[in-house]
């Protein structure tokens, strides 16, 4: 672990209109880590990711990426710095083909040959997509869409990948496969991963460190094996 975190949030606050969603979040992610945020519905996990990416404006606090503040940066300027998100619900472009979805992931890139190479690499990683490159994204199954969404994010050659509830609505076998790929991305390409999950079980086994969020605040932070042994966590999130 290097000294400087790749991503750091300091007392970040955010609101939807007059409703405060984040009431002072602080967390950090070091290069090469897989960090997970768990918490109940409405805790503010997705909002955190959207605030990092600039879709929701932070009303207070600082967001530092690679040591530089990004809370005032326009959302569409972040992917080119290596910060990409796979948002909740996949959000693939429904009426674009699989190939076009992937191409959009590399929109900000100019290096045509490398883009082609990455496209082939993603199709190798997800053979089920390779069979359907011309199919419209909206007609894919949930699991296929999730893979497409991840593949699209990978097309941006991210240094830091934010994943919002990748397991949502998917069959356990597919979830397992997806997390295998997440681990592979982290090990092989060195991509740092910040993972938001309602499924605490999966999240805590995939990540090395974890944050627990409740109603807009971070209530706990620890290594995931210690979190898993924590009786409160077990009662609240691991179904004991």
């Amino acid at each position, binding site marked *: 672990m290097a000294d400087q975190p790749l991503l750091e949030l300091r007392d970040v606050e955010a609101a939807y209109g007059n409703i405060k969603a984040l009431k002072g979040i602080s967390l950090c992610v070091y290069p090469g880590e897989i960090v997970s945020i768990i918490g109940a519905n409405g805790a503010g996990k997705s909002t955190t990711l*959207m605030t990092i*990416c*600039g*879709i929701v404006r932070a009303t207070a606090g600082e967001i530092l990426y690679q040591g530089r503040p990004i809370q005032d940066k*326009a*959302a*569409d*300027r*972040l*992917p*080119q710095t290596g910060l*990409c*998100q796979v*948002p909740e619900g996949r*959000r*693939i*472009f*429904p*009426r*674009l083909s699989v190939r*076009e979805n992937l*191409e*959009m*992931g590399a*929109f*900000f890139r100019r290096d045509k040959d490398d883009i082609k190479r990455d496209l082939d690499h993603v199709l190798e990683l997800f053979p089920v997509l390779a069979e359907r490159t011309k199919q419209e994204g909206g007609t894919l199954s949930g699991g296929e869409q999730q893979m497409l969404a991840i593949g*699209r994010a990978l097309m*941006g050659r991210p240094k830091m990948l934010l994943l919002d509830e990748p397991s949502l609505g998917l069959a356990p076998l597919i979830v397992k496969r997806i997390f295998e790929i997440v681990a592979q991305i982290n090990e092989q390409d060195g991509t740092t991963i910040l993972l938001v999950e309602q499924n605490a079980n999966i999240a805590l086994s995939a990540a090395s460190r974890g944050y627990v969020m409740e109603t807009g605040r971070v209530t706990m932070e620890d290594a995931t094996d210690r979190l898993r042994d924590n009786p409160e966590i077990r009662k609240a999130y691991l179904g004991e």
Partner: protein
Amino acid sequence: MEYFLQQMINGLTLGGVYALIALGYTMVYGIIQLINFAHGEFFAAGGYMGVILLSFLSFHGYMDTHPWWCLTASLVLSMSYCALLAMAVEKIAYLPLRHASRLSVLLSALGMSIFLQNGLMLTQGVYDKPYPTSFTHGGFVLGNVLQISYMQIMIVGITALLLVGLNRLVFKTRIGTAMRATAQDKVMSALVGINSSRIISITFALGAGLAAAAGIMVGLYYGSVRYDMGFVPGIKAFAAAVLGGIGNITGAMVGGFIIGMVEIMAAGYISSEYKDVFAFIILIAVLYFMPTGIMGENVDDTRV
């Protein structure tokens, strides 16, 4: 029978014009869910720019020596002019209202429409402005019955070229895919690095350019332009866009041709005074029975 075929040809010509205008409506609605009331004025402004440029060139004799170059130059310059106009309108009247209520943007659009229409009137006069005598007089007769004028061939030809060009742009280029992506999910497009403001500007520019071309061709076909020529064709073109499925580019093209055909046929066989009414009736019928249009909508139906 010959009458029918003749009307088909007329319908094709008119339909192409409506298709060009409808594309602007559909692309803008697809991307920011706004009925750009001012779009009809881009059509009119294009017509006027065509007159101004062709008159100027005609005055200096270029129309006699190089008519086709003159036409091409006028077309290109008018389209560019209207593109700039549309981008300006977007920045003034729509960009500040990006997060406002639908009613506010609609009224802002209305205000712009009135402003532009009157701007044209004040700078160019209230009366019809005649196009320089068309250089494509005459035509030929097909099979001894069908009259096809060279003007019609030219219009259909240019329209086809523009439609094919737009199709290639939207479906085969990176920017076109980005335009479609932004229309389908604005938030996600930002998350992959697409600058939606820029895409929106480009959309406006493209739509207005096509409308400008339509304006010139209408001016050449009917021989003149008027400051308020944008109002009724604007509504009909919007009807065409809705008929084809709002936001759907292929739909707008198809819808335009259908509306054009229906109008010509209805004018020929039913009643020519009420011909404008038919497009409105189609609009109301489509929105009542099949609001997503015949080829499906293409808008951002996500919630953040």
